């Protein structure tokens, strides 16, 4: 592998972290969905590049990411958002500035944690794992800071993208695991989609604070 190949792998994995930040920054529903599609595409390119370099079976992973997460899920979520009539804005629990700072701290944390732990592994595994952990943590952060159910779903999906990046870094997954993960995400998405409509029917909103109230947690 030449230096340029390594640089491109590094660039793509790093861009995934950057797009995670862009997801955190968006406060419009449609922009969020579009950036989620970009997130999936960057993941697909990153995995595809690694497939080109060393493991051709990773092309299937890249294809799954591109088709399912890059096209089908964003389009479906787009329709759901229109049908729910919530395409105006997302309410964030914490404002964007502090969220960003917190995100930076999480990225720093994952770099500090991952680099010493993986000292014996190859360079690309280490890079991928550090970036993948950041993407996962940023996905969690997204789920924590958003109140809207749809944006929480997006947080979950971006988290899953991070897991795929980690898996490709560490020698790649077996194909069976790969496909079943792809389908389980799709099924999770279906369940969540049905769930969204049920929440709306019950509470007239997809703001998850309504659930807290139903449980009697806050006034």
């Amino acid at each position, binding site marked *: 592998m030449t230096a340029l190949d390594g640089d491109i792998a590094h660039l793509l994995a*790093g*861009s995934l972290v950057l797009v995670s930040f862009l997801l955190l920054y968006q406060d419009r529903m449609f922009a969020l969905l579009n950036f989620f599609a970009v997130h999936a595409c960057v993941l697909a390119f990153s995995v595809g590049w690694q497939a080109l370099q060393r493991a051709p079976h990773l092309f299937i992973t890249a294809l799954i990411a591109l088709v399912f997460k890059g096209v089908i899920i964003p389009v479906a979520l787009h329709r759901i958002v229109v049908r729910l009539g919530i395409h105006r804005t997302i309410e964030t629990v914490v404002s964007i*500035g502090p969220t*960003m700072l917190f995100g930076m701290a999480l*990225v720093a944390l994952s*770099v500090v944690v991952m*680099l010493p732990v993986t000292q014996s592994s190859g*360079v690309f595994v*280490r890079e991928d794992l550090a970036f993948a952990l950041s993407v996962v943590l940023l996905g969690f952060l997204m789920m924590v800071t958003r109140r809207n159910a749809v944006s929480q779903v997006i947080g979950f999906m971006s988290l899953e993208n991070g897991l795929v990046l980690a898996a490709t870094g560490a020698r790649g997954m077996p194909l069976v695991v790969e496909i079943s993960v792809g389908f389980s995400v799709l099924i999770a998405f279906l369940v969540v989609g049905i769930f969204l409509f049920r929440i709306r029917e019950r509470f007239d909103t997809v703001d998850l604070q309504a659930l807290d109230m139903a449980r009697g947690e806050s006034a």
Partner: protein
Amino acid sequence: MIREWLTQLGQAALVLGLAPLLSGVTRKIRARLLRRQGPSIIQPYRDLLKLIRKETVIAENASWLFRAAPYVVFGTTWVAAALVPTFATGLPLSASADLIVIVALLGTARFLLALAGLDVGTSFGGIGSSREMMFASLAEPAMLMAVFTLSLFAGSTELSSISAYMLGPHAGLSISLALALVALVIVSLGENARIPVDNPATHLELTMVHEAMILEYSGRHLAVIEAAASLKLLLYLSLIACVFIPWGTAPSTDGTVAYAIGLGAYAVKLAGLGFLLVVFETAIAKMRVFRVPEFLGVALMLGLLGTIMLFVSRISR
């Protein structure tokens, strides 16, 4: 030795002469993109001449600071612009052409301009100064973070060395560089009062920042401030060109031919960057003033992220 000093002086003269032309060209392209005819590209020179000939009106309660500020602002901006390598690197002053020095010089200019805005005591000047300072409190750290990323990457804060490093075999693609570039672009949009942050073409908006500060100036003072503003735009574009598109720049030891190539390359780079700037400006709407800190905060965040990611990319080198 003498030739190198002459080149340095030539560079200082070049940036001063070229700055209004750059403003003129960007205005012309902008007008053409909006399907207007637009003023001629040498209009900024005519404006400056006209302003110099005009009488200078000064408010009764203006202090010496108000009269001195334009010249100091112009001086510091000019020195900063002359330090950035344009067509040749390794000039005699390049040892002091340090990114941190440039940030400090621009900071001095900003400080004086804000003081001058407050000096007369009108409400417009005050609002301009307070907003400028609000933006500066985010733009300057963001600029410094981008500078740190670059200097950690290239191992120097000196622009000539950074430029040489970028041309060398060790540079390569890096996500940190991309982040630093975006951060630098955002900061330059903010610092030059360009569209998403401020509108350079208006005097009539309540959201204006830069124009509000200099509202009390007239005549030669205004001319000097306008010249400084166009120099600042040129400075940022040259900075980006020098670090991220260093090809074609001549080392000072080379001959006249290399200088000529360097000059041509510099003109092409400036024109290209100016064109991109204008296309971006016409494609985007101005944002609300209270949204600007978020925008500049993104630059700060990108700079920080670039620095963190540098530690990850370090392991592969």
